[in-house]
């Protein structure tokens, strides 16, 4: 311990007593980093909870435009790649270089597969015009190519939708209206008795369920822009969908870089049963990316 620097293996930093101490420190550091990742996504999960609590119908409505099959395949791909990653760590510990290499490459291919399917899904959404934000209401660019668009059906703008809802006697929250002009503020003052911040989650009222139920059998569903039954602010679902899956996608890309780097180092024979810290830590990262997707998949694709 005193004569450091002489019998140090090349991977050992000068400030460590031995490889074990360095490994444990690296592992603790990685877990802390994963904690920050969880909190980073945690912000969005809380956002999801708030928005879902306030407007559950948005999520029931929006999820029918997602392809559950593609999502399920992606989930399987990611879980498999997590398995191969775990096997890679074991083979590194066992000093089996060839098997380590195979598993790392398989993991990398799994990541590529996930991103390819994600690309297919995103492209489909963009073609259908299912964008986050106000661009949602422009409808698909190529209407003939759209699965959902029916030529001849009237387009329901945000304003006409509000008129329709008011006509049905539905109370339209003021937040659904374009930046409120003063005149409207006065016209709607009878709503003033409600303290808005005190409103809890609206919950899935029976009326909302009834309204949406018959539509579950109808496929393909109408394009939201042509749908008089769509909830106001239907685009909000795609806001949170693209933000969460997008941020996750970025993490997958980072994971691919990490795994690629591990492949290069494994090819150079850097890892063995004495030193496999990078494989272990890279594996931890890959598992958290996988884990986050395992939450995202049911939240967006499965539960209505």
């Amino acid at each position: 311990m005193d004569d450091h620097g002489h019998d140090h293996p090349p991977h050992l930093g000068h400030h460590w007593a031995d490889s074990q101490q360095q490994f444990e420190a690296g592992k603790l550091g990685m877990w802390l980093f994963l904690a920050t990742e969880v909190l980073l996504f945690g912000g969005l999960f809380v956002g999801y909870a708030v928005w879902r609590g306030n407007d559950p119908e948005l999520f029931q409505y929006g999820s029918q435009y997602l392809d559950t099959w593609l999502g399920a395949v992606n989930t399987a791909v990611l879980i498999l790649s997590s398995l191969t990653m775990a096997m890679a760590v074991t083979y590194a510990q066992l000093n089996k270089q060839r098997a380590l290499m195979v598993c790392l490459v398989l993991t990398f291919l799994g990541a590529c597969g996930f991103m390819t399917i994600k690309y297919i899904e995103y492209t489909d959404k963009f073609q259908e015009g299912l964008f986050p934000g106000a661009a949602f209401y422009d409808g698909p660019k190529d209407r003939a190519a759209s699965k959902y668009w029916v030529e001849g059906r009237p387009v329901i703008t945000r304003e006409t939708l509000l008129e329709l809802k008011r006509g049905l006697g539905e109370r339209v929250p003021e937040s659904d209206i374009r930046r409120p002009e003063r005149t409207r503020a006065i016209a709607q003052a009878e709503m003033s008795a409600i303290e808005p911040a005190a409103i809890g989650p609206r919950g899935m009222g029976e009326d909302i369920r009834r309204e949406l139920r018959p539509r579950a059998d109808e496929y393909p569903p109408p394009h939201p822009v042509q749908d008089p039954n769509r909830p106001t602010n239907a685009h909000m679902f795609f806001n949170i969908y693209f933000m969460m899956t997008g941020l996750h996608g970025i993490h997958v890309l980072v994971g691919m870089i990490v795994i690629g780097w591990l492949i290069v180092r494994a090819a150079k024979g850097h890892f063995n049963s004495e030193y496999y810290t990078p494989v272990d830590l890279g594996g931890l990262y890959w598992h958290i990316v996988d884990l986050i997707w395992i939450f995202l998949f049911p939240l967006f694709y499965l539960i209505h």
Partner: protein
Amino acid sequence: MTSIPSNTLHTDNYLNHTRGFMSWAFTLDHKRIGVMYLVSVLVAFFFGGMAALALRTHLIAPGTEMLSEDAYNQMFTLHGAIMVFLVIIPSVPAALGNFVLPIMLGAKDVAFPRLNLFSYHLWVIGAIFFLMSLFTGGLDTGWTFYTPYSTDTASAMGGVIPALTGAFILGFSSIFTGMNFIVTIHRLRPPGMTWFRMPLFLWALYATAVIQVLATPVLGITLMLLIVERAFGIGIFDPALGGDPVLYQHFFWFYSHPAVYIMILPAMGIISELVSVHSHKHIFGYRFIAFSSIAIAIFGFLVWGHHMFVSGQSALLNVIFSAITFSVSIPSAIKVFNWLATMYKGSISLNAPMLYALSFIFIFTIGGLTGLHLGTLATDVHLHDTYFVVAHFHYVMMGSALFAMIGGMHHWWPKITGRMYHELTSQIGAITVFIGFNLTFFPQFMLGSQGMPRRYHDYTGDMWLPETVELFHTYHFWSTIGSYVMAAGFFLTAGYLVHSIFRGKLAPANPWGGRSLEWQCTSPPPHDNFAKQPTVGDCYDFSVLRWDEAEQGYTWREDVPRPGEGDRDPYEKGELE
């Protein structure tokens, strides 16, 4: 370095170990990284301070036309953003913590030196992004970036996205520093240093690091949402598109309230060191101080809603947040009483570090007690967003956090530079800054409780009642005068510190009589800190040290065995642990 042989650093140390710009910019040595942080933070402090002086000068009288409205708004935004993100948050942990923490642990470096360097580079990149915001249309949102003002391109100026990106990057700089410190404290403690034998500064840094790691990612995601919203207008915080502007405030304060403790906790840790070392007396109530740091870190996560008492948040939430807010005041009070008890029957040296520590106790008491006014629901409704709040958080963030940082800088200056500064000048400097500070910010309490709102470019006009203007004028005037006094104090401080680097006396290894490990290596420390890992004793037992006239510093008493050598220390035998 050899031109003045009689007064020069001759031993091999971290400053002269290698030479050249690259040996600094890409160093992995925690001490050099700490010094680079310190210099960068002080440069940022200079610019933030200049902005503050411009603001105060503008407000000296009603109707001043020194700054236009937009210039004023940019100036206070700049002042706030620089001081929060670039100065106070990194000041103690990243600058002083980086330098001191590994040495206090008897370690050669932090756990991840490369990550540490990367944190610093991120700081520089973040600072560059802040600068960029000035040249891309300016930034006038206030450091809080409240929506919908900040996301509305017709309202806020064009520099919002670069500034948000800068804050995002700085957030990651802070996260990485925190991670590094946690791992270092967990894995690199020397033999004999149990958790309850760590210097309290390390406890404070540990609690801080926990907040940095757990709260800052939420800031990251918040800023990301804000960037997306600003760039694409998808309506997350825009009521016109079904979003909620108040949700942003929740997100923002979930980080930014714990961030207040990122600022104050390490400051309190410094004060625990300064008070005991400069009173030459064992710290009183070690465990209460250590646990109160952890308690503050935990409670700090649960009180963010007290920034939003008048935001339209429901009354029930307000009551809950108010109740939890008060729970934070208790651990803070415990610390103050413990510091006083430490001074009892001590031997108090009134040198500059101790003067800053005493200023801290004075100022933090005011800052903390006025926090009660703001945590109380009925009074906060009146005081919210007035100068009372401005005064309160300057008492806490500047008068406490920053003064502790400056006190700590004076305390470790001999260790960092290997030089002593001029003692009398430093005392004058400390007292000037203290007087200037109180003259600047105390009138702002009255200003605020009398109703003056914050972030006001002017306080006169057709609709202002003349007697109100007259009253506000008096307070603003004295506040501005105070800021000049304080600025003079800071310039004096900068002067003698710079002077000491070139002309100061050589510092002994232990000029103040400190017992923690950093005082056991030479000043400045060698590149590897310790040739042989030192053994740890009770780091607050100062009775084993004596003044050595020849050294001009403290040395170990010959009649007392060192830890590990004798059986003097009951901790050593595990009796008290």
